[in-house]
């Protein structure tokens, strides 16, 4: 009887150890997934930075000065996002890696359409999924970085859409100043607030990009 009890206890103990190992493995798997997501996001933001700078050059050459400024401001924002993501990747013990591809530059109209498509995908699909995963992993640094990027991408999509709608009237326009939050990349045409709506950085600290 005692031997039977002892055997049962041993089995129970093994079961507990096995469950604990499974939980540990699941945690490690989740951490890897968030890391992979951050690497994907870092790659995406780094490429967007390069792509928007190329789009800005094209817009300048076609005489859309204001659109060129918008692309440069968005490029700066993407650079800030890439920097934020890189910090999280380093915190997770890895090295940020990006494969910069040669931008596919077309006409400014097509470039704007491509930019809207990219920003919309990031706002509606990519970042919400990555955020859900980071929240499950309770990685606050990742949530913060992804949240900043998602909010700014939504603003970029609005600005690009407005530019595309008014593209004909923007022909021959001069460069204009956009304001980019140095912490979260939030991009606006006017500083109509005291603090950044996304990260509460005072408006005085916003970078001017034209």
């Amino acid at each position, binding site marked *: 009887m005692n031997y039977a009890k002892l055997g049962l*206890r041993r089995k*129970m*103990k093994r079961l*507990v150890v096995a469950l604990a190992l499974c*939980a540990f493995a699941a945690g490690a798997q989740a951490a890897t997934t968030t890391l992979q997501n951050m690497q994907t996001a870092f790659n995406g933001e780094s490429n967007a930075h390069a792509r928007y700078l190329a789009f800005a050059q094209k817009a300048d050459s076609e005489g859309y000065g204001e659109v060129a400024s918008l692309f440069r401001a968005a490029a700066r924002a993407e650079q800030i996002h890439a920097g934020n993501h890189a910090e999280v990747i380093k915190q997770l013990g890895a090295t940020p890696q990006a494969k910069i591809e040669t931008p596919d530059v077309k006409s400014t109209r097509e470039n704007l359409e491509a930019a809207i498509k990219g920003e919309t995908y990031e706002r509606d699909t990519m970042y919400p999924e990555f955020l859900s995963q980071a929240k499950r992993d309770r990685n606050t640094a990742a949530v913060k970085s992804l*949240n900043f990027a*998602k909010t700014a991408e939504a603003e970029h999509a609005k600005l690009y859409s407005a530019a595309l709608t008014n593209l004909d009237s923007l022909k021959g326009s001069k460069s204009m100043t956009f304001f980019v939050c140095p912490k979260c990349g939030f991009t606006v045409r006017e500083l109509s607030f*005291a603090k950044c*709506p996304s990260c*509460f950085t005072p408006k005085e600290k916003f970078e001017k990009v034209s």
Partner: protein
Amino acid sequence: MLHFPPIPTWEAMHPLIVHFPIALLLLSPLFILIGAALSPSRGQPYRIAGLIILLLGTASLFVAAWTGEAAGELAERGGPVDAVLAAHESLASQTRILFLVLTVILLGMTLLPKALRRQETRLSSTFMPLAFLVLYSVGALFLVNTAHAGGRLVHEFGIHSMVPEESAPAAEDASAAGERDH
């Protein structure tokens, strides 16, 4: 078995801290009012208690605002929540400034007569505290509006702080029990 919950991160401190300024800063005027109603000598301990509570409340208000900004960075934006979050943040900043000013005024009202070695009179012990409470009501109005906006964020829009993950107490307890059996 009861055990300590996980230590909250700076961002997750906001829901813990935020109740302190609300309670303390709404309690302080009651002590000031009692102090003003009593004679100068009998009312003095109440006025000092009111000042101490105000100091603690203002200090906790600053911590609540700092942790709130950190927590706000984790809140997903989009839709009507943006306006409420912006209002909450803006009101919190204004409330912080107001209570800093109120604290400096009450400190001055309490310490200046002592520094100048002046005897307490009805003017300094009753009428000035009552006038101070009129000013205080402005701060209290900002405070309750800030709290209301915060309450809306949580209970109407479901904005929550990220609480650190619980360790697995069941597994730990079972393992510990197993160890004891041997």
